[in-house]
């Protein structure tokens, strides 16, 4: 008996010891590997739920820990690149903005997706988001969420949505005091997106197909710049246009003074919650075209999930990222966080359609979507664009085509200041 109690005691101690050591050390072989997922701080909790459920489903293979980054894309990038450039092993999965793919891949900070996990990451994805995770014919991330702007307008003031920017500006000018168009004109990434979308809608692009040389064909660029100048100098422009970002334009639209707004889909749940009386009269349509009869093409946003090249558990990180980006969690992200999915079939899912009554318009927008230039120097290119084109009211299309080309060329040669 005495011996038995002793054995029991030792067993109990061993179990307690095992529990303690698994709790605080990662070096022990039997401990669950911890995967750090760096991603923007998603307020609804959809991301943390995905992290938890995927960890549970892995049955002890890995544990995903969410590390929130700031909401602002530039600040997210700033924190990530500083760590990645230093080879930080504490980053496993990266919530990678669609514009970082080329840079991160070229710098060898992330691993390419191959084999089974790559198939999982590609399954059923929309073309544009999938393209955004691809660089030099290799997949560098699992397309997770996407985003595009729509045209939001007041159905109580306008019967049918305008199809082109010219038509919309003209219409707004005839509406009088409430004929304001809300757009993003601050000197930041949003202005670059605005320009690239106008340019793509006019049939142009910033870089040529090689992705290394400047394109900026004369005619489409002039079209795009003319729309910007016309909008900014019209009475239909908000007087805060030069400092407006997405959120300011949303608030201004919710105040009821504007009749049109180009903005992302987050404005819909927001209007329903803040100003239900206005939400009743909100209509949606495709982003306006630049040339009549030629549907607009918007430069999409969103994030892909990439695996850091310095991760200590890359295999597990691929599995976890594939799980987080799977149908189930994309659906959750749409339901809880209002983040549009990258899996095409989800746009026919009843639950998703309930969240996005504009699912069809959004789906068709995404089908025609374009990408911002996929170059490792995108950050510099974008800064060059937003610097040259701000403020929009000072744009002189003929002169600024030349300035723009000059600034982007310098950026592509890494020689211009920013």
């Amino acid at each position, binding site marked *: 008996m005495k011996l038995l109690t002793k054995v029991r005691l030792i067993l109990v101690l061993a179990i307690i010891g095992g529990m303690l050591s698994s709790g605080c050390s990662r070096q022990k072989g039997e401990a669950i590997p911890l995967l750090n997922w760096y991603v923007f701080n998603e307020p609804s909790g959809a991301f943390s739920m995905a992290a938890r459920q995927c960890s549970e489903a892995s049955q002890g293979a890995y544990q995903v820990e969410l590390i929130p980054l700031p909401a602002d894309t*530039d600040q997210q*990038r*700033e924190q990530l*690149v*500083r760590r990645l*450039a230093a080879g930080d092993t504490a980053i496993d999965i990266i919530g990678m903005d669609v514009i970082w793919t080329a*840079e991160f891949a*070229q*710098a060898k900070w992330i691993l390419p997706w191959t084999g089974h996990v790559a198939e999982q990451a590609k399954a059923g994805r929309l073309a544009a988001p999938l393209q955004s995770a691809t660089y030099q014919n290799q997949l560098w991330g699992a397309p997770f969420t996407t985003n595009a702007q729509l045209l939001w307008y007041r159905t109580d003031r306008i019967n049918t949505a305008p199809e082109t920017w010219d038509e919309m500006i003209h219409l707004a000018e005839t509406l009088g005091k409430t004929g304001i168009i809300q757009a993003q004109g*601050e*000197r*930041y990434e949003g202005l670059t997106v605005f320009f690239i979308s106008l340019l793509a809608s006019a049939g142009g692009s910033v870089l040529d197909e090689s992705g290394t040389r400047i394109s900026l064909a004369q005619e489409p660029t002039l079209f795009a710049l003319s729309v910007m100048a016309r909008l900014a100098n019209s009475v239909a422009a908000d007087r*805060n246009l030069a*400092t407006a970002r997405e959120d300011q334009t949303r608030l201004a639209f919710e105040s009821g003074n504007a009749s049109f707004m180009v903005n992302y889909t987050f404005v819909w749940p927001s209007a329903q919650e803040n100003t239900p009386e206005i939400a009743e009269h909100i209509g949606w349509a495709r982003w306006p075209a630049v040339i009549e009869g030629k549907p607009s093409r918007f430069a999409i946003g969103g994030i892909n999930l990439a695996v850091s090249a310095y991760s200590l558990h890359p295999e597990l990180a691929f599995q976890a990222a594939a799980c987080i980006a799977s149908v189930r969690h994309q659906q959750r992200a749409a339901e809880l966080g209002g983040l549009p999915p990258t899996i095409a079939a989800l746009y026919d899912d009843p639950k998703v359609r309930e969240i996005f009554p504009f699912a069809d318009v959004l789906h068709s927008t995404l089908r025609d979507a374009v990408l911002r230039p996929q170059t*490792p120097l995108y*950050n*510099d290119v974008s800064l060059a664009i937003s*610097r040259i084109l701000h403020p929009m009211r000072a744009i002189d299309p003929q002169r600024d085509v030349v300035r723009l080309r000059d600034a982007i060329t*310098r950026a592509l040669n*890494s*020689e*211009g*200041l*920013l």
Partner: protein
Amino acid sequence: MNLRQRNERRLAWLLCAPAVTVLIGVIVYPILYAVWLSLFRYDLRFPEQRVFVGLDNYVSILTSEVWWQALGNTLILTIGSVSIELLLGFILALIMHHTLFWRRAVRAAMLIPYAMITVVAAMAWKFAFDPTTGFIDALLDREQAWLTQRGSAFLVIILTEVWKTTPFMALLLMAGLTLVPHELIQAARVDGANAWQRFIKIVVPTMKPVILVAVLFRTLDAFRIFDTVFILTRGAQNTETVSMVGYNTLLVSLNLGLGSAVSVLIFVGVLIISIVFIKGFGTPTGRRGEIDS
């Protein structure tokens, strides 16, 4: 030079050696390394593509409108804040110097802003000027988004700087005030000079070296301004300063070559300011002879 002198000289060098070694390690080496890096096209994202480009980085910076704009902004902030600080600093110094009661308490109270971390101070000012949460708009009975326009953004940045660093100026000037011989003031008073004449003809000339040192210190500080602007506007509304250009190039774009060139140019700016002050205005550098002259 006899043997003893030579030995003493050697001993002096030996005694200085540790300090000199440390200084070379933490100051001279980084400066030289930055100068060296600035001659390369060197992007930390693509380290293998490093090429020697000579002075190309400097040419590219000096022909860029971004640099000149930032330099202009920095000079506006520097001149704006230092001149107000000098004025206010003098007033505060005179108050501190002439306080009869609670001298220590008054001095300590005036130093509080200087003791505060710049980021915290800038945050406080940002909140104060915020149109929705701030009290400034309510106080002035207006609705203005101060930080969204260039002019008012500059005003807020300068005010923040002034609030934060005037105590430093005041402290230096107060030390200068104690240098003014009491007998001189008394004699002037006997001769019928009024308070303003005594201040302009006696106090200021006697304090000139101290004033110049104080202004030099503050100018050098203000020229390198970063944190206040970073917190208040992040360089938006065209308020970017040269230090922010350096930060953006080095830490956001990870462009080591170009960023080092910006840093070197800022260093040159600091050097020019120092030379103008020391050679042009005769600011003493600490050697006895010059203070006396």
